[in-house]
Structure formats: structure tokens, C-alpha cells
């Protein structure tokens, strides 16, 4: 009985967390360079509808995923021109992008409402996938789920183990200094912002290609905002973003199981548990002021104008 429920709960956790991981890890890189892009929700929607449209037209899933990443990068380019080149307020520009993404995706997706896609195939690893519990939980997902984990690892390695990653962090900490020693701050921020956009696009694509293969207006249902919150509560650290996403996904799935079993707790409270649990846990592990000061990018959200 335990195994009977444990497997769908854990497996559902990993699936529910995947779109959050994509969106949050992209935003983390952008924020590390000092750029807050509140347009994640809108970019995800653009990614979802792009992936749906491309897959619906008959192209294979990886083309649809690439197209969504490209569309996400393009959407974030709009934000970058406004917020980086024209130095408008990053928060306002990001919010505008979310509104644009929501409207634009609804417009493009208008004719897809009655369509259903085939989900992308799950990978079957010989031996590993057949293990009890661990097999179906860890080794029976689609390629996009594993890609999200690989990207998280790559981002960690990039930020903390490469010189380019160090430069990105310097740009976020002290853009004037980075500029003074010759790094192209605006250009680097363009790159990180577009990386963030393409990841949000992929997160959106995951919804259309793997999670719920249909198109419903605003189907991201706030996942972009959750991703933004995860980055902050995880104190801008990739590992904690992963943890936060799993926690949020896990409690979401768990509370649905609890409701179905008929646990004597009001459904409203159960539905709010994922938010409460994620905030409490991430704040608790990131509460050390030293950690926060070390990790929060100093120039976060500030426009950069080269001086001198």
C-alpha cells in the first residue's frame, strides 16, 4: 500500500517541479548579474504556446522545445532593450512583459483550444527503470525532466567554477568595477537575461509537451511567479532552487493525495500548504544574514549607466 502511493507521489513531485526548475534556474542567472525580470510568467506562456504550435504543426518535440527556448529568448530581448539599453525601471518593464506574454499567447493560442498533443516519450533505462520504487520514481521520466537537472548542475558549475561565471557574479555585485576593468556590463546582462528567457520558455514548453499536452489560456497558472519567489527564498543558490522546487511540487502533490484520502483538514488550508511550507523551509535554511549578504547580488534591479 505504501509503495502503491509512494511511487505516484514522488514521481508526481519530480514532474510538478520541472517547469519551476527551468524558470527559476534561468532567472537565477539573470539575477546573479543584477537583472530582475518579472516577465517570467509571460515568457513561460509564450514558450508554452510556441511549443504547442510547433508540435501541433507536426514537428518533433525537440524542435518544439528549441523553438520555445528561442521564443523565450526573443521575448526577454524586448525586456533587455527596455531595461538594459534604455535603462527603464526593471520591475515595470518585467511586469509589462508578463502582461504582453499573457495577451500574446492567448492571441496565438486562440485556435489551439480543442487540440490535444501526444506527450513526449518517457525514457526507459534498462535495469534501473525496473528497480522497485526508485525505478519508476527516478528513471522513468522524459528527456526534458533530466535536462532540467543537467542544466541546474551546469549553472552551478558555471557560476562557481568558471571564470565566466565569476564575471557574471561580479557584474551583479559591482557593475561599475566590472566596467572599470573592462567587462561589457550591458552585454553580459543581455546574455544572462536571454538565458533566463530561454529557460522560462523551456519551462513553459514542458507544460505543453509533457505535463498537460493541451493549450488553455494562462495555463502556467502562476508558476512564473513561484519561480521568481523560489530564487529569492533560495538565496540565489542553484542547489536550494532545486530543493525549493521539489519541496513545492512535493507538497502540492501530497496535499492532493491528502484531500483525496479524506483527511480532516479544510481543502483551503491544504491548498495553501505548498506556499507556506516552501517559504518556511527556504527562509529557515537561508536565514543566516551572512549567507544572504554574500549571495544577494548588490546591484539587483538597478539600471547600469557606465560612469567614467
Amino acid at each position: 500500500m505504501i509503495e502503491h502511493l509512494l511511487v505516484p507521489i514522488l514521481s508526481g513531485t519530480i514532474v510538478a517541479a520541472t517547469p519551476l526548475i527551468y524558470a527559476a534556474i534561468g532567472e537565477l542567472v539573470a539575477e546573479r548579474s543584477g537583472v530582475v525580470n518579472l516577465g517570467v510568467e509571460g515568457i513561460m506562456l509564450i514558450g508554452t504556446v510556441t511549443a504547442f504550435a510547433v508540435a501541433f504543426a507536426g514537428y518533433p518535440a525537440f524542435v518544439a522545445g528549441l523553438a520555445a527556448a528561442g521564443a523565450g529568448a526573443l521575448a526577454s530581448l524586448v525586456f533587455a532593450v527596455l531595461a538594459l539599453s534604455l535603462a527603464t525601471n526593471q520591475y515595470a518593464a518585467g511586469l509589462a512583459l508578463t502582461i504582453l506574454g499573457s495577451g500574446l499567447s492567448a492571441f496565438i493560442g486562440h485556435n489551439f483550444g480543442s487540440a490535444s498533443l501526444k506527450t513526449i516519450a518517457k525514457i526507459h533505462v534498462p535495469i534501473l527503470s525496473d528497480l522497485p520504487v526508485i525505478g519508476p520514481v527516478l528513471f522513468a521520466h522524459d528527456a526534458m525532466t533530466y535536462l532540467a537537472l543537467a542544466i541546474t548542475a551546469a549553472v552551478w558549475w558555471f557560476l562557481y567554477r568558471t571564470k565566466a561565471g565569476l564575471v557574471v557574479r561580479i557584474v551583479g555585485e559591482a557593475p561599475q568595477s566590472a566596467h572599470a576593468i573592462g567587462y561589457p556590463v550591458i552585454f553580459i546582462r543581455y546574455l544572462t537575461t536571454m538565458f533566463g528567457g530561454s529557460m522560462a520558455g523551456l519551462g513553459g514548453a514542458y507544460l505543453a509537451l509533457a505535463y498537460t499536452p493541451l493549450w488553455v489560456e494562462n495555463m502556467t497558472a502562476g508558476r512564473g511567479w513561484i519561480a521568481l519567489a523560489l530564487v529569492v527564498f533560495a538565496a540565489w543558490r542553484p542547489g536550494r532552487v532545486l530543493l525549493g522546487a521539489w519541496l513545492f511540487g512535493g507538497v502540492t502533490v501530497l496535499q492532493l493525495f491528502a484531500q483525496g484520502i479524506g483527511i480532516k483538514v479544510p481543502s483551503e488550508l491544504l491548498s495553501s500548504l505548498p506556499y507556506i511550507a516552501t517559504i518556511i523551509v527556504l527562509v529557515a535554511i537561508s536565514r543566516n544574514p551572512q549567507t544572504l549578504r554574500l549571495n544577494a547580488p548588490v546591484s539587483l534591479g538597478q539600471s547600469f549607466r557606465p560612469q567614467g
Partner: protein
Amino acid sequence: MIRHLSRRDLIRYCGAAGACLAAGYTCSEAKADEILKVGIALVSPVAEVGWTKQHSLGVAAIKSAMGDRVEVNIIDNVFQPQDAERVFRGFAASGHKLIFGTSFSHGAPIARVAPQFPNVAFDCCAGSKVLGNLGAFEAKYYEGAFLGGIAAGKMSKGGKLGFIGGFPIPDIVGPANAILLGAQSVRPESTCNIIFMNSWSDPGKEKEAALALIAQGCDVICAMTDSPAAVQAAEQSGVWSTGYASDMSKFAPTKQLTAFTVDWSSIYVKDALDVVAGNWKPQSRWQGLKDGVVKMAPYAAGIPGDVRAILAKAEEDIKSGALQPYAGEIKDQGGAIRIAKGAVMADADVRSANWLVAGMLGQMKG
């Protein structure tokens, strides 16, 4: 060339401008007498399935019934009450003689605007107030839900149903009860696990809820959500489902048993014809299968003939009144008798349902 405006000048200009406006207004009034202008506020853009799609059927019905004697103007994405009030006032001020609200959230704003335009007919779906020129209409979802429940009870292997709803409100709790009562009418030991999303639209979470119910052994997923995600997830998992609002069989070509859909066409058309004829009266309507406001989507091909016969008989009996979905004896989750044997639940109680019937596994309130 800037002239100094004295207060008297200003008043004179304003008066002139007002006169021009008034002239223009009476002109448009005169035109409106020839062609009926109907204004409809929709909560979302028209999609392929869901609540707004069903209202768009009413729009199409008015157009086909009245042809070029009617002009229908739609404003969509009107959900928030403050937006709705502005939209309703705008419709009324621009010569629309019949104005529809299509949501519970339109109820309060339309009731504020209606008294200011006594010559305009207002009608609000899921509205709660009836005024001198404001009507309200709602569907008896529970009649369709009961039939869906019969199909679910007959087709389920273990008699374990799963229900997914938006919020624990009477409009959703009532039909949930009706589904289980329908199932219990053909299989008394039926139970139903119930999950509330606490959101109107989150396809991802709806899918997770469906999978959670399936993992807990439910083999019919009864969805009362706006997106087809749960019905689609059931199809992918190979279990039966029932849909709501629209026929969702495109997303579950083999496994959607049926869907209880709503069709407001008859109400829209009657209102429009009555307004033109000058005998429109505000009223509260609550109609179901008999009036065609609730309609069953085509039953799945996998339902055998004897079950179809039971369903057809039950549908006829509900229409004729011989079968009452909420007929006693009905017990609640705690085992207390809510409706005595031989009695039928009062309409007011149906519309304010805030308890779950015996056999429900789920929580309504803390």
C-alpha cells in the same frame, strides 16, 4: 489665439457641447428602435471548451433566430466587478436594450447599474438578485450530474469514483453530491474521493489531482473544472471520466463517459424576442434537462446497451419529474439524515449545499 474664457463663456460652451451630445444620443436611440442591440459581457475570451464557450452558443442562437434585426456586441475578459460595472454602464449608455451578465461576479455590479437604466432589460447568469429590470438565470447542473453519476456507477469496476472541483462552494458541492447519489442509485456501495483545487484554472494541478485519485484506486474521474486536463489525464491513464460545461471528448475520445453541458440558447433567444415584443419581464429561472439548458454530451461508445437504456430512462424520468435526484433518504458524511425518506430537498437547500453526502471521502469545512 488663446481667448480668455470667462465663466459665463465656459458655461455657454458646455451647454452647446451638451446639446450636441444629446442630439447625437437621441439619434442613436431612434436607430436602436429598429435593430435590437444586445450587449454581453463574457468572463474570458471564447475558447473551444468551457464556461464562456457555452455562453457563446447563446450569442449564436440569438443571431440565427433574429438575423439582421439584432446587433450583438460582446466584451470579453470582464471578470472583476469593477470592470463589469463600467462595461454594463457603457452598454446601457450606448443604446443596448438587452444586456447579459454571464458570471456570479457580474451579479453585484449589474444590480448596481440596472436601476439607473429602467428602460433597459438586464439578465444575469448565476446572478442572485431580481429587480424591476434585472433577471437571473442558472442551470440545474445536478440533473446532468446525477445522470453522469449513473454512468459512472455502472461503468466503474470497484465503485470508487473521484471528483475534482474548483472551490468548495454550493455550485460545485451540489453537483458533486448528485454524481455520487446517481452512482449509488445503481450501485449502493459507491464512494467518491473528492479534491478541491481552490483555483478556477490550473491545468497542471488538475492533472496531478486526477493522477492522485487514480493512484488511490478511483476508476472514474468526475471533473468539474474549466480545463480538460483532468479528463485528458484520465484518458492517458486508461480510466473513465465525466466532463462538465462542454463536451470534452476531443481530449478523451474513448474514455469520457459523458459530460453534463449547459446551453443557455433558449434563455438568450427568449429574452431577445420578448424585449422586441415589449413583453419582457424580469424573472428568476432555474432550468435543467427538461428545458434543454442542461444537456448530456454523447455517451461514450464503450457504454453497453443496457446501461444506455437505464440512462435514457433516467433522463426521461428526470424531465417528467418522476425521478428526483435529491429524493430522500439522504444522509450526510456523518451519517445524520438530512432528507427524510419520501421527501425531496428544497430548492433553497440545493442552491446552498454546504455538506457532502454519505460515501464522500473528503473534507468540506474544518
